[in-house]
């Protein structure tokens, strides 16, 4: 790899501003190292001789450079208990808020979209069973949705390799999975049967609306890949799929401030979360 000095302050800020305008991702000084590393990687791969040359490539989205750049931050590989701080926020803050407007016998509905191969919705299910003291008092409905039907099929099958389970405490693995070979774990049928999976394109209202309204939606690291109009449409769809007062969690580098003015921002100790205004 060629040696490049770090970005100047001005270059870093301009890059962040461009990425924010283009994707809605926010990078603070704390993330600077990762951003610089990624720039250097991409400069090397694209044989860009200077930051300006690379930045021009990014700005014009040459050969899909924006998506290439952003992919490193979304890390397509998924695993159980990813972004655990949001799960913590779910059980310690968000559900408590939702319970204020629920009556006995009401359901709690949670949507994981995109759900990819199912790690996220299953994680939510396991986390609730393990950590939410009210888990037996309410009906909990978890839906996982993705545009990729192959991913949905894998999610329904519920088989995962060791790597996907690395963040799970051993007793959780033992409780909810059955070993199925050297590098394969099968989610218990009970759990597998409790999460429903659907195919959805979040930009298509005809596909999102039938899912009904949810108390909490997890929509991580997908809005950043859309253009302005699609992002706006998706945000409106997700707004419609939330109960008034319901919450939506984005990826931890994403900000709704670039995406849509429809939501209020709620800052909890574990996460920044967005809320459909209550009536």
């Amino acid at each position, binding site marked *: 790899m*060629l*040696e*490049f*000095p770090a970005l100047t302050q001005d270059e870093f800020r*301009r890059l962040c501003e*461009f990425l924010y305008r283009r994707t809605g991702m926010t990078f603070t000084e704390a993330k600077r190292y990762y951003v610089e590393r990624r720039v250097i990687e991409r400069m090397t791969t694209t044989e860009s*001789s*200077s*930051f*300006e*040359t690379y930045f*021009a490539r990014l*700005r*014009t989205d040459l050969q899909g450079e924006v998506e290439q750049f952003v992919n490193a931050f979304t890390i397509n590989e998924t695993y159980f208990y990813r972004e655990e701080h949001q799960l913590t926020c779910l059980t310690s803050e968000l559900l408590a808020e939702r319970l204020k407007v629920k009556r006995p016998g009401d*359901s709690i509905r949670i949507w994981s979209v995109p759900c990819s191969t199912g790690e996220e919705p299953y994680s939510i*299910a396991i986390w*609730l*069973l393990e950590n939410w003291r009210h*888990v*037996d008092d*309410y*009906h*909990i*409905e*978890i*839906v996982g949705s993705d545009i990729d039907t192959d991913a949905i099929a894998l999610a329904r099958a519920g088989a995962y390799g060791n790597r996907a389970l690395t963040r799970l405490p051993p007793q959780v693995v033992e409780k909810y999975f059955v070993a199925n070979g050297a590098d394969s774990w099968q989610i218990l049928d*009970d*759990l597998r*049967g*409790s*999460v*429903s*999976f*659907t*195919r959805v394109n979040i930009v298509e*209202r*005809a*596909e999102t*609306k*039938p*899912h*009904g309204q949810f108390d909490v939606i997890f929509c991580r690291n997908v809005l950043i890949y859309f*253009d*302005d*109009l699609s992002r*706006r*449409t998706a945000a*409106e769809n997700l707004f*419609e799929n939330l109960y008034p007062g319901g919450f939506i969690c984005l990826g931890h580098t994403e900000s709704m401030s670039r995406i*849509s*003015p*429809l939501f209020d921002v709620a800052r909890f100790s574990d996460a920044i979360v967005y809320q459909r205004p209550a009536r």
Partner: protein
Amino acid sequence: MPLIRKPPVEAAGTPASAPDAAAVFAALARGTDDERWSAARAAADLPDSVPALEDALRRERSPVVREALFSALAHIATTQSVEAVLRFLRSDDAAVRTEASDSLLAMKDVVWPYVAPLLRDANADVRILACGLVRDMPSQVAVSLCCGVLDSEAEPNVCAAAVEVLAEVGESSALPALERCAKRFSDAPFLTFSIQMAVGRVRSQAPKPRA
């Protein structure tokens, strides 16, 4: 296990049939907040809905519903919908100006034929917003339009908006216009600063190895 599973959503029946245009337009005019919002979204897919959407925008007080109305017009993305949105660009209400501007930005190349005339609008704020639209146009056109602004614009804030765009997309062909503008506004510290920054960035674009 307290987790429950409902029948899969796709099995819940065929997708909703095409909305009834008359019902949608009626809800646009007379519904509750939720009904007007929903109708605005549905109108995006109906033919000939631009006049009804524009009409609704003139009366609408709720920012949430307005957002859906402007979204629908952006979704339609025809010259007719562009012209409808343009009529709100001069609103006294800053929120409406922002919503209209965001809607235009989402329409991308459908708006481009309108950008040059907008850069000559009588209203300085409109000319500034037009510079924002220039940023997304193909580089050579953007540079040419911005240089045109720098040479003919009397209002410093509009020049500043053009400089902002050149600082991002500018090439060496923009340097003469930048330098001429700097001379014209030599007593305006912000413009001097901005032009200096833009010139610096444009000059550093000549590819050179860092090592």
